[in-house]
């Protein structure tokens, strides 16, 4: 009896300590990779570490960052959202149509309608996946096409430009020297990090992704959680739509094509498992930054964009490969 009860109490020991170190590496290996990448780039290109360049990188990644955060929620529940690029384009178009200089609408109108457009499409994804059990891949693949179609229908295939300066501020403005899109991305990141780390909703998301059956039998309303993550992804597409229209001074019907791929790539590089239930929003942040820094570095080095695609793809594969080998070693 003594034997059993003594080994039953959790102990802080050397093994615990070691677990903490391997845990740290598995949580933050991506940060190490990011720093190494930055060091290499600062050596090969003197411009890389310039404040302007770094702000430029952050501005460039902020849209993909917002999409990737929504994507992280979805992937954590074993889902996927292929429609983010199209939903973003639709939201941008809706917002822009109410933000042209001579429309006379107060700023709140395009902002609200842009977010609402994204949220509405996300809710459609959510209902179909959660309530009607359409596989996420199929549903969002359908939405990828439908939202793009809606964008063309709504705009009649024409871009909407000459947007009001107050709207453009969202994409081009600065607050204490920091670009507004970067601030928006940072705010979304903090909120998502807090939600996943500290709220019951976050806990439900991990549980549903980890084992939906066990989650359901533990009284968790799995379909409600599933619905919510697609709604969140849609809402964040709405925000990204506002950001991209404001940054490019126009809403283009073909905006955001293939953006879902960068968003998924960032999530995967960040170590979130496509099998669900495992991953961190901090990982996604660094996945987004790594993609941004690579694009920027290759730009600075004058590498053609054709090669950039090649390199980015290779990095995704290598990142996941390293992740795998690390897991099998522990």
């Amino acid at each position: 009896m003594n034997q059993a009860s003594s080994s039953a109490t959790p102990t802080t020991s050397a093994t615990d300590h070691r677990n903490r170190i391997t845990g740290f590496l598995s949580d933050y290996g991506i940060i190490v990779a990011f720093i190494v990448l930055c060091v290499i780039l600062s050596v090969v290109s003197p411009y890389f570490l310039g404040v302007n360049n770094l702000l430029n990188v952050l501005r460039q990644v902020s849209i993909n960052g917002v999409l990737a955060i929504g994507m992280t929620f979805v992937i954590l529940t074993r889902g996927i959202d292929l429609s983010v690029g199209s939903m973003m384009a639709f939201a941008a178009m809706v917002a822009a149509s109410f933000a042209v200089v001579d429309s006379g609408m107060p700023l709140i109108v395009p902002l609200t309608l842009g977010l609402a457009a994204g949220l509405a499409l996300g809710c459609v994804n959510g209902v179909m996946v959660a309530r009607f059990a359409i596989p996420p891949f199929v549903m969002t693949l359908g939405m990828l096409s439908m939202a793009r179609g809606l964008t063309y229908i709504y705009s009649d295939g024409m871009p909407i430009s000459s947007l009001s300066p107050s709207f453009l501020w969202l994409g081009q403005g600065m607050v204490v020297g920091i670009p507004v899109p970067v601030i928006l991305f940072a705010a979304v990141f903090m909120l998502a990090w807090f939600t996943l780390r500290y709220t019951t909703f976050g806990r439900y998301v991990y549980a549903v992704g980890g084992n939906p059956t066990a989650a359901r039998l533990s009284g968790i309303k799995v379909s409600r959680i599933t619905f919510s993550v697609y709604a969140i992804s849609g809402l964040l597409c709405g925000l990204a739509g506002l950001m991209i229209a404001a940054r490019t001074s126009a809403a283009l019907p073909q905006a955001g094509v293939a953006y879902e791929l960068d968003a998924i790539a960032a999530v995967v590089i960040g170590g979130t498992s496509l099998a669900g239930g495992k991953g961190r929003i901090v990982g996604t942040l660094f996945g987004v930054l790594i993609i941004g820094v690579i694009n920027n570095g290759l730009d600075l080095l004058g590498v053609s964009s054709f090669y950039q695609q090649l390199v980015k793809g290779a990095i995704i594969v290598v990142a996941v490969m390293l992740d795998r080998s690390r897991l099998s070693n522990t």
Partner: protein
Amino acid sequence: MSTPLLHAEGIAKSFSGVPALTNGQLSLRAGTVHALCGGNGAGKSTLLNVLMGILQRDAGYVQIDGREVNFPSPHDALDTGIAMISQELEPVPDMTVAENIFLGREPRLMGALVDHRRMRLQAEQLLRELELHLPANARLGSLSIADMQMVEIARAISRDARVIIMDEPTSAIGERETELLFAAVERLKARGTGIIYVSHRMNELYRIADDYTIMRDGTFIETGAMADIDRHRLITTVLGKELDEEYAKYNRPGADTLLEVDDYGRGKDFERVSLDLKAGEILGIFGLMGSGRSEFLDALFGAAPAERGSARLRGAPFQPREPGDAMRAGIAYVTEDRKGSGLVMGASIKRNVTLASIPDVARNSLIHEGMEDAVATPFVERLQIKASSLDMPVKQMSGGNQQKVVLAKWLQTQPSILLLDEPTRGVDVGAKREIYAFMSEFARDDRAIIMTSSEIPEVLGMSDRVIVFRKGRISGELHGDELTQENLVRLSS
């Protein structure tokens, strides 16, 4: 003594510095069944995984026919004639029996095309030889678990496997299927195949095993002939300590009715089920696979609601439409499949313990980690969960400890009725007793348990009363002196 078919010695394996196995040893003779015995965390699975090439050993050696071998992958082990049959090595459910048997070595036509006809004929011949009455072209997924296991055995034999590892082969099958399995084992022995057999069911070991090896805490303890060790000494050696009485039963049913079920039915799963549950009672439900017993529990818990009939809980109408309804009414449900529906395997002990009561460890929807620790810690002590820390992922734990985590999860919801479906499946002797003791302690005052089990001794040992299911209906109810093995078998088949 002649050269053993398989001999392993000094096998060691650590995971991130934590030793799981320090001295694994096993010597298997051709044409015998060798029982590998040990409790939770004894290192049995680790040793078997090393033998199978799934894990790489840190030290020690493995010999086949006296020659040292090294398997970098399970594929190499298979090529050398070692096969493993376990619930984890999943076959391909959407392929036919024949396709599964010849998976990876299909007979070819002109080098590239699969020769389906020859494959089917060879499979049929093999099934005939093994006296298995299975159609070679049936989809594997349409078979019962027991039949799937038979297909796995056929596959192992078709690969000329000389060593077959069977890890808990009977944990998911009924009595009749177990007989078929044992018949197959006898035929394998006659062919000179050596079988390493792992089971927590003592009766089985005494029936089919020739030799035994006992492991404890990752180390080899002793080996010998099954005939030379009695049941008591085997159990105490496995546990390393003397045991209390097996079925520690001290609950006593009261007079108050806690739950009444009237004419419950759902689809073809079960119908006309009426029963009641007294406070302080452990009600056993016995039935073969497919008798509707698990489906009935699903309905009581609202996981798959009943379509017909009604239920009353403490006199008030009770109609669970989803698990949340049953949980609010004070019902908890330990399913038979803890990996599939009980636990989030990749998550920590702590998170699994709080899984069904997340709002309890939160204020204003914010998780309070201190509360979470405070909730989970007492269960480790109370249920004697063996773990290095509360943050350890449950997938690294043994079956018995995982089951205790499931129990902890439900205890935290403070239920008054516990539904236990096969509460000790895949759980070692020591942990089994702890679970029995826990059940007796739980079923007191105004609490009660409904338990299903396919292990007859467990049903007889723990139940105050047993209701037998057959083909979705109640075929009888047994109390007191009527609680015998003969009656259970007669009513259930």
